[in-house]
């Protein structure tokens, strides 16, 4: 006997299940990604100077608006609200949206009622959905739109306005916390660092976001290692070098089409951890490596080729392209790790920083570098540095006496002044 079993999706799957896989701040950033896609269509030269995105967040309502071009009625009818990307759909070049899940998932995550208004050239329409009502009908999946004269015109230039109300209780709670807004701001600043540097203004509750870029130390003697790879239409650029000693900031930063996907990554995903052996170079993160910085850029016109997960907060570690790139990342990382192992103390790490500038990654990208990491060895730095340290121990009571006599408080000053005194009195210039 043969027959059919029901394998159709349910609306609850999209409303209640998929929404659990994404954190609130990432759901919001997903909505800003759509604005950036609009910007890429509107300004292919990537000069975003006159564009803006505004987020207005309160316990009653969530609103995101932009002047990034909006999307057409045809796009809305055929693609934008579909669950999943239909075959044959042409994506925005260099976008990060590719799954056809981001916007709906974000809206469902935030609340039970949403209104999407878009103005794009001649097209101007509103899609308004009461999620609870929509979910009761298992057969009809369509959303209704309206266009024409009766619209309350929130949009005066081409762009999109999304308002979500009837917020879920847990979301209301988050939106009432200023700590959430602070965190969201920092996250958006990081994820869109490159788009911010292209001139777009992003506001959260009227506060303008700044950029908070990854930096690497740079000098004539200290230059990152660089490797450029091409896999079909995907271009990959890898930079490794050192930055300020910070166990928090250390690690890998991975960008897909200029959108930061993974940051400060120090797990097996980027070749850390896994196996740790004394003489082996398999690496477990340790304070010694607090200066390590690695940055990878994946760029492709076709976002489907990028190794992104659907939440855009992770890398698909099984993707063929990422596995190949990871092998190259490891080789470059080993060079820097090998160097960092030669720095034995915080003092050594400070010495390396002398005469370097802290270069933002976007400036780093202006030029290419050899595939070998260039860094000065400590003895070379020592030779070039005309200053040396003197350290010695003396009886505390004697040191205090000398300090009193000199009229200074710190041991450092006592040392310096007694040295200067001897130099002046006893040593001929």
């Amino acid at each position: 006997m043969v027959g059919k079993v029901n394998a159709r999706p349910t609306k609850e799957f999209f409303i209640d299940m998929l929404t659990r896989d994404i954190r609130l701040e990432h759901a919001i950033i997903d909505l800003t990604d759509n604005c950036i896609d609009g910007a890429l269509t509107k300004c292919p030269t990537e000069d975003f100077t006159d564009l803006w995105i505004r987020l207005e967040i309160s316990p009653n309502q969530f609103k995101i608006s932009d002047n990034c071009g909006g999307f057409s009625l045809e796009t809305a009818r055929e693609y934008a609200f579909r669950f999943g990307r239909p075959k044959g759909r042409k994506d925005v070049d260099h976008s990060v949206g590719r799954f056809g899940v981001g916007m709906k998932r974000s809206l469902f995550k935030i609340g039970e009622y949403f209104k999407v208004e878009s103005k794009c050239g001649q097209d101007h329409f509103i899609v308004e959905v009461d999620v609870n009502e929509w979910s009761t009908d298992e057969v009809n999946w369509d959303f209704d739109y309206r266009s024409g004269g009766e619209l309350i015109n929130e949009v005066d230039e081409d762009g999109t306005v999304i308002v979500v109300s009837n917020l879920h209780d847990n979301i209301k709670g988050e939106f009432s916390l200023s700590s959430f807004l602070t965190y969201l701001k920092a996250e958006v600043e990081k994820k869109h660092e490159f788009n911010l540097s292209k001139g777009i203004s992003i506001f959260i509750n009227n506060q303008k976001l700044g950029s908070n870029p990854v930096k690497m130390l740079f000098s004539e003697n200290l230059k990152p290692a660089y490797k450029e790879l091409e896999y079909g239409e995907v271009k990959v650029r890898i930079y490794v070098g050192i930055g300020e000693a910070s166990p928090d900031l250390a690690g890998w930063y991975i960008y897909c089409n200029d959108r930061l996907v993974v940051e400060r990554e120090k797990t097996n995903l980027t070749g850390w951890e896994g196996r740790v052996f004394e003489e082996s170079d398999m690496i477990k993160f340790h304070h010694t490596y607090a200066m390590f910085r690695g940055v990878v850029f994946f760029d492709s016109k076709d976002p489907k080729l990028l190794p992104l997960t659907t939440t855009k907060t992770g890398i698909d570690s099984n993707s063929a392209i990422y596995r190949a790139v990871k092998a190259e990342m490891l080789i470059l990382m080993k060079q820097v790790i090998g160097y960092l192992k030669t720095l034995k103390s915080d003092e050594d790490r400070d010495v390396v920083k002398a005469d370097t500038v802290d270069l933002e990654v976007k400036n780093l990208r202006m030029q290419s570098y050899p595939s070998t990491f260039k860094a000065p060895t400590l003895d070379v730095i020592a030779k070039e540095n005309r200053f040396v340290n003197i350290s010695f121990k003396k009886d505390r009571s004697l040191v205090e006496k000398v300090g009193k006599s000199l009229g200074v408080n710190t041991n450092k000053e006592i040392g310096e002044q007694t040295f200067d005194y001897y130099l002046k009195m006893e040593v001929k210039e």
Partner: protein
Amino acid sequence: MSLTGTSPTYHTINYNLRSAKSIERKIILETIRGLYPPNEISKYRYVGFGSIFFADFRLVHKELGINRMVCIEGSDDEQRFQFNKPYKCIELRMGMSNRVLPNLDWSCKNIVWLDYDRTLQPYMFDDLETLTTCLKADSFLILTCNGTLPSFRERVKNENGQTIDRAKIEEFKRLFGDHAPFEIEEKDFSKANVPGLLRKMFANCIESKLQALNGVKLNSQKIKFLQLFNICYKDNADMYTFGGLFLENSKLRTMKAKPEARRSFISTGEDSFNISSPIITNREVDLMNQYLPNGLKRFLKTKQIQFIPEPMRQTYHSFYRYFPHFMEIRDF
């Protein structure tokens, strides 16, 4: 190459006098020379651990005409190594191989010989992974290490109170992580089986890295590792050599078919090839040479050489073309 806390072999043995090693070197060089024309091979770079005798470097320069050579040395004797460098074209890089290798420029074709003198260590896999990622197609990778695993056996009492010798499999797995074969068992640790275990681990390590790198390549451009060397030899310690050639998939079949890739000492599979060096005098060598080349059976039956023990005759027949000649030269 030496490592902290252990005495490098060049302190205890003159590399030039290791006859099995010498035979191995010649076999490997002859294979390389047979697989690529001289004008191509001479453009390769040789990367090795020269020791103060630089025996492999001398041979590679003379026999293959290679002028670009990098010697990696992990000891602190830089001055001594600089002094003993036989040619100015040898670049000396001080440091452990797992630090130095990632820092080299890998844009040319290479012959890399990781001639470790220690038993299996985790850093050897780091080096294999680095090289599998960095080496271009048509490059050779050879690894030699001690062919025993002394530290992975312990003596314990069984339920009958008898003392037995047991392999420390868990400790081995902990140390080598996923490089340890999934199906590893007690018998893999026996002296006869260790070379097989080593081969499997080295081959798997290269294969898994290649798989990661090949996923994004067209079938014809995928890189394959053609194993050529799977050699056991002994001068004073049991040694094991694993090696082969990275090739684009499209070239694999033609390369496999070349006679040089089908010689008796080439092993593309699990069975290792044993080099044993006969202990014979120079006069015996001269005598036997008079009846060579010849088929093995006829050679063994030759009346005039019957007084030389058969195993010696047999071994000499296999290796006479590679057999080194040592003599003392006074007032040299």
